[in-house]
C-alpha cells in the first residue's frame, strides 16, 4: 500500500489548478476596480482631513510639530472606547465596505453565472475554495498597501515627513504610548492589523454569501459585527471580554498600550486571534463545500 495514501488529498495533488484559477479570480477582483479607486480617493481625503484635524488641535506654539505618523495613526485608529463620533465610525466602516465590494464579485458572480466554468476546470471543491480564500487574503494585502499609501499621500499635504512620531498625542492626553513609536512601527501595526482583520471580514462575507447564496447577507453580517463592536465601546465599557468579540480586533485605538484600560488587549493577541480566525474560516469553507450545491443563477430550471 502506498505509504502516502493516507495523506489528505490537498497535500498530494497538483497545485497548478490553484495558482492558475487565481488568475481568473483576480481578473474578477480587477473588474471591481471602481471600488478600489473610490477607496483610494476616500483614504486620500481621510488622510488630508486627519492632518488638518491634528494641526487644528495642535495650536500650542511650544509643542513639537505633529508629523505624518501622527496623522496615519489618527486615520486608522478607529472608534476608541467612549467615542461616539460618527465621522470616525463612518471612516472605519467605509474601509470595510470598500474592501467587501471589491471582493463581492468574487463570490456572487461565481455563484450566479460562473460557478461551473472554473469549478469544472479545477475539478476539486477544496482547491476551488482554497483559491477563493487565498485570493481574499492576497487582495486584502494589496488593498491595505494601496490605501495606506493613499492615506500617507493625503496626510503629506498637511504634515511633514519625519520618521518619529511627535509628542502630539502625549500633549493631548491620549495614547501615551504612541509617542514612543516610530513611523515604521505605526505603519507595521496598522498594516498587519488591518490586513488580518479585513481577511477575516472577507472570509466571513464569502462564507455567509456562499451559504445563503446572497452576497448582501455576507456584507450585512460583517457590518453587523462591526456595529456591535462599536456599540459595546460607546459607554466607556472597559470590560475585557469585548476583546474576544469579532471585529473589535480591527480597532487600533482599543489596543494596549493605546488604551490602558484594556491592558491584555495587545496587537499580538489580535494578530493571533485573526490568524486563528482565518484558519478556522478556511476550514469551515472546506466543510461547507463538501456537500455544497452549486445552483447557479436564480433563474436556473
Amino acid at each position: 500500500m502506498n505509504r502516502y495514501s493516507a495523506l489528505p488529498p490537498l497535500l498530494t495533488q497538483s497545485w497548478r489548478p490553484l495558482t492558475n484559477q487565481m488568475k481568473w479570480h483576480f481578473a474578477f477582483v480587477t473588474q471591481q476596480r471602481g471600488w478600489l479607486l473610490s477607496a483610494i480617493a476616500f483614504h486620500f481625503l481621510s488622510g488630508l482631513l486627519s492632518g488638518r484635524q491634528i494641526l487644528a488641535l495642535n495650536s500650542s506654539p511650544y509643542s513639537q510639530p505633529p508629523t505624518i505618523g501622527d496623522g496615519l495613526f489618527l486615520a486608522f485608529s478607529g472608534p476608541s472606547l467612549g467615542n461616539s463620533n460618527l465621522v470616525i465610525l463612518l471612516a472605519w466602516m467605509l474601509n470595510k465596505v470598500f474592501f467587501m465590494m471589491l471582493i463581492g464579485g468574487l463570490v456572487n458572480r461565481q455563484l450566479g453565472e460562473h460557478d461551473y466554468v472554473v469549478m469544472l476546470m479545477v475539478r476539486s471543491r477544496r482547491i476551488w475554495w482554497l483559491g477563493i480564500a487565498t485570493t481574499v487574503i492576497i487582495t486584502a494585502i494589496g488593498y491595505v498597501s494601496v490605501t495606506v499609501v493613499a492615506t500617507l499621500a493625503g496626510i503629506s499635504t498637511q504634515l511633514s515627513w519625519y520618521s518619529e512620531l511627535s509628542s502630539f498625542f502625549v500633549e493631548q492626553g491620549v495614547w501615551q504610548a504612541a509617542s514612543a513609536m516610530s513611523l515604521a512601527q505605526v505603519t507595521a501595526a496598522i498594516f498587519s492589523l488591518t490586513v488580518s482583520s479585513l481577511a477575516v471580514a472577507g472570509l466571513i462575507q464569502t462564507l455567509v454569501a456562499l451559504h445563503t447564496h446572497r452576497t448582501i447577507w455576507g456584507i450585512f453580517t460583517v457590518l453587523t459585527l462591526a456595529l456591535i463592536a462599536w456599540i459595546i465601546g460607546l459607554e466607556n465599557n472597559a470590560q475585557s471580554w469585548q476583546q474576544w468579540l469579532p471585529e473589535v480586533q480591527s480597532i487600533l485605538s482599543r489596543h494596549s498600550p493605546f488604551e490602558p484600560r484594556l491592558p491584555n488587549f495587545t496587537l499580538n493577541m489580535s494578530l493571533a486571534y485573526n490568524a486563528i480566525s482565518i484558519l478556522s474560516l478556511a476550514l469551515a469553507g472546506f466543510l461547507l463545500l463538501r456537500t455544497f450545491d452549486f445552483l447557479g443563477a436564480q433563474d436556473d430550471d
Partner: protein
Amino acid sequence: MTINNMNDIPVLINASITAVAVKAVSKKLRGHQVLNDIELLVNVGEITGIYGPNGSGKTMLLRAISGLVLPDTGTVSVFGQHVGRDTEFPQDLGALISGPGFILEYDGLRNLELLASIRNLISKVDIQKAIELVGLDPNDRRPVKAYSTGMRQRLGIAQAIMENPKLLLLDEPTSALDPDGAKHIHDLLRGLRDRDTTIIIVSHNQTEIGILCNHIYRMQSGSLYDDALNSLSNIQS
C-alpha cells in the same frame, strides 16, 4: 467468469458503451422536489435531448450529472466513475449551463486562454480552433461586453468544446442564436457526435431537440419521461 451478484451485470455489459448512468436520483431543494427518481442511460457517441418547460428540472439534472449538485439519493456515473465517490467531477466533461459567464473586459480568446490555463491541456491554437468552430473570429479583440448575446453563447460553446471533452452538457445552446446560427451549431454538434462525443442537450425548444437528438426525454416537475419519441416524430418527419 462467474457472476455472483446479479447487480454487476448491467455494469459489466454497459461499461464500454454507457457514457452516463443516472440511477434513481432525487433532489429536494427548500422543500421542493427538483429531481424525482430520475433514471437515464446515455450511450457513447449519441446526442440525448431533454425538453420541458422552464422550472421542470432540466438544468438541475445537468448540474447533478456534472457534480455541481449532489443528489439526496441515487447515483450518477460518468464513463464508469461514480460522481461524488470515485471522482468529484467527471474527468472528461465540457459544459454550458445556465448561460456563459466571462470576464467582460477581456476579449473572447483571452477569456478562454485564462480558463484553459487552469488545466493547461491545450494550446492557444486549439483554443483559436474552437472559437472558429463556433463561428467567431479568434482575432476579434473587442471585449466580451461588446459581444451580442448570441456571440457570448457561441463563446460559451467554444469554452465547452475547447478541451475536446468526451461528454458535453449543453443547456439551451442555441436560445440566443438566429436560425442560421442555430443550424451552424447543430452541424457542429453532429460533427462532434460523429467523433464519438456524447452530448446531452436540454432545451424547451422541442423542434431543436427533435431534429438533433438520437434519444429524447421529456421532463416535467422534476420527473423524467421517455414517452417523448412519439410526440416528436411529427417534428422529425
